[in-house]
């Protein structure tokens, strides 16, 4: 580890914290449906969309209706993507003349992008036409992100509603208004600026195909180009993570230097961190948001420290051969150890899944942190929207546990937490271990599953475990040695992604509806304060115990066994 490395990490945290309030404030304006300066330009677009689709943006929806409309929209988008991918061979915008995507891969990819996972069983430059990248994939990067933020807004309203009027009792907002406003007034304008920054730094943005050239040494090279920057911007900002190229943000065309790398990491976290402030403001006490962010930062910095330490220590098996320095296999020189370690923790703490280094080649414990981050449910800042609503599920359990200890009815930010909310929160949290451990176990014993891993021994098991963790947690990063473009993995990973997204969302919305119908009770002398260090500590504990403990045996079989083999010098 170097001083310069820690300087980078601390600069990152400092800039992130400075961004939290301005981003949160902007999000709060959208949460409230306030007019922003951008309405002057985009207001007519917003109203036009509502008119054509027959939407009344002011109509409050109960949780069932909100969920139904959200699901209907997502299914429609899923079908569009599937159709475009299957038909890309006969559609325009295909300068490389790529064939249609096979059914199992189109199925997997359509679910993957709809659920904000962006797991990629394919190599972008060899599989996707320009039209597919734009029309089938970029659109999801916006709308799955907007949906995540909308869902967080819905849950915030559940907590924040004071005395709802009789006719809209239990209303949690309007899904269409939320998604349209978030897209038009936040994601789209931010991406316009971000795209131009990326292009200025060296990311291509063109409709041309590959450039064929002869290198200085006389070899042939074919450089694929495309509308990369416009997709890259929303890929990071929306915590999507699906790369234009196979190597994702390790590819020099996606991430050409230290500055783009820094901005990419920030843009993964910016909205998720901002939403903690928005939550605090929505429930009328910004200290509530600060407590959440504090708990997130404790978990985040612990992860960074472990991964950076392990990657900087390097691979003893290579040191024995006369090589010095950290673990550079799978890493780019322009990023080095610190920026690669930091990126890997950021991308898995959030549900982004973009990578600037190949996680499969990380040291066993360096790679354990990304895996564990996802298994916690990506609540450390987390995906846009998904992070904070996942985190609030843990907060509900934390006040429940605190309530059990002192023998009082638990409450959180003025709403009583009762049996219904706790049951639903447990239901949502239990989806992840069921999907991950169940499907990993199945793939570890059946021949279709065992055909996948590239590496032998415990690391091969880690590859399978990582794939299902990444899919169910809607992350999308990979231990990419796994050959996942098979009907078995495409199918099961698709199922895991769908479960991990919508089987968490529906109980979460049910909680939002149930909370919205409750009357606000102001904090009394007997209330457990949820803004202090005690609550932060309790939250971290609950997340580690409930989120993490379930997975410890699987981590022992994979990364921990791998680590022991490495220090003993045992190859496999």
């Amino acid at each position: 580890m170097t001083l310069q490395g820690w300087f980078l990490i601390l600069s990152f945290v400092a800039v992130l914290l400075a961004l939290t309030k301005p981003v949160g404030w902007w999000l709060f304006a959208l949460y409230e449906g306030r007019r922003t300066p951008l309405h002057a330009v985009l207001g007519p677009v917003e109203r036009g969309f509502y008119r054509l689709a027959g939407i009344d943006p002011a109509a409050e929806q109960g949780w069932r209706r909100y969920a139904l409309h959200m699901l209907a929209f997502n299914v429609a988008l899923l079908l569009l993507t599937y159709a475009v991918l299957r038909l890309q061979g006969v559609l325009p915008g295909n300068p490389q003349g790529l064939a249609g995507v096979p059914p199992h891969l189109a199925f997997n990819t359509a679910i993957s992008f709809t659920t904000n996972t962006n797991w990629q069983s394919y190599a972008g430059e060899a599989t996707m036409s320009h039209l597919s990248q734009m029309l089938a994939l970029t659109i999801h990067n916006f709308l799955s992100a907007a949906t995540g933020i909308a869902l967080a807004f819905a849950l915030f309203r559940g907590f924040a509603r004071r005395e709802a009027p009789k006719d809209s009792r239990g209303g949690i907002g309007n899904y269409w208004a939320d998604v349209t406003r978030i897209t038009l007034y936040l994601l789209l304008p931010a991406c316009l600026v971000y795209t131009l920054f990326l292009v200025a730094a060296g990311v291509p943005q063109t409709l041309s195909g590959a450039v064929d050239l002869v290198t200085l040494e006389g070899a042939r090279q074919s450089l694929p180009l495309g509308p990369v920057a416009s997709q890259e911007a929303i890929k990071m900002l929306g915590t999507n993570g699906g790369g234009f190229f196979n190597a994702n943000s390790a590819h020099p065309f996606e991430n050409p230097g230290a500055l783009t790398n820094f901005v990419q990491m920030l843009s993964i976290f910016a909205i998720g961190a901002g939403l903690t402030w928005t939550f605090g403001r929505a429930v009328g006490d910004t200290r509530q948001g600060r407590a959440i962010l504090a708990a997130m930062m404790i978990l985040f910095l612990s992860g960074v420290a472990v991964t950076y330490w392990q990657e900087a220590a390097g691979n003893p098996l290579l040191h024995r051969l006369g090589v010095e320095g950290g673990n550079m296999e799978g890493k780019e020189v322009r990023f080095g150890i610190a920026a690669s370690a930091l990126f890997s923790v950021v991308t898995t703490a959030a549900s982004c899944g973009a990578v600037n280094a190949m996680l499969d080649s990380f040291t066993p414990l360096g790679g354990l942190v990304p895996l564990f981050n996802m298994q916690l449910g990506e609540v450390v800042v987390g995906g846009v929207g998904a992070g904070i609503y996942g985190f609030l599920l843990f907060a509900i359990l934390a006040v429940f546990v605190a309530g059990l200890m002192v023998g009082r009815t638990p409450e959180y930010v003025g709403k009583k937490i009762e049996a219904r909310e706790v049951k639903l929160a447990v239901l949502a949290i239990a989806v992840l271990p069921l999907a991950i451990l169940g499907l990993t176990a199945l793939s570890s014993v059946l021949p279709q599953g065992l055909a996948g891993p590239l590496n032998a021994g415990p690391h091969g098991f880690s590859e399978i475990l990582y794939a299902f963790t990444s899919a169910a947690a809607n992350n999308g990063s990979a231990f990419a040695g796994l050959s996942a473009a098979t009907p078995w993995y495409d199918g099961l990973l698709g199922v895991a992604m769908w479960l991990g997204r919508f089987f968490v969302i529906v109980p979460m919305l049910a909680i939002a509806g149930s909370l919205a119908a409750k009357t606000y009770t102001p904090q009394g002398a007997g209330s457990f304060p949820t803004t202090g260090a005690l609550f932060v500590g309790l939250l971290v504990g609950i997340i580690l115990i409930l989120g993490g403990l379930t997975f410890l045996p699987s981590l022992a079989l994979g990364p921990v066994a791998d680590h022991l083999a490495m220090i003993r010098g045992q190859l496999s």
Partner: protein
Amino acid sequence: MGKDLTSALRPAIVMTILFAVLLGLAYPLAMTGIAQALFPWRANGSLVRDADGRVLGSAVVGQAFVADRYFRTRPSAAGKGYDALASSGSNLAPTARALADRTAADVARWRGEGVRGALPADLVTASGSGLDPDLSPAAALAQVPRVARVRGIDARRVRALVQQQVEAPLLGERHVDVLALNRALDALPR
């Protein structure tokens, strides 16, 4: 529920079409137009040309250098090496036998060329993209004696050239762009 579902269908279908046009077509096409107008060289891949206008590569993406007279780039897992149509890392685990064998063979080759002392890690490891354009300063300096010998130039001049080419960004690692370095090497008067 049945009536609710019907009421959800129209907005779902219409909004899918509207957003597809806005986000899937208008946004990327508008960005392409603006980017092409403002930053044409960057938007088209930062292509590097020789004096005759022939494209030699991209200033951003790495290319293979295997000859003795040039500074060599890192091992690459992209296709048969620096294949930009197949960007990829090796994905080998630290404990993989294949990684240990590959590294041992590479170390032996560098030793055969007279490189002494501990080898910089990037010299014998494959990058994440397989298209890494850079070397660490140490990995470039380790190659100075060979390059100088093959070219018949004083090693001190080659070393000075490497040091000139080192970039040190504020938030990044010190590195040398290999294509730029080798072009500068070709331009060095005898």
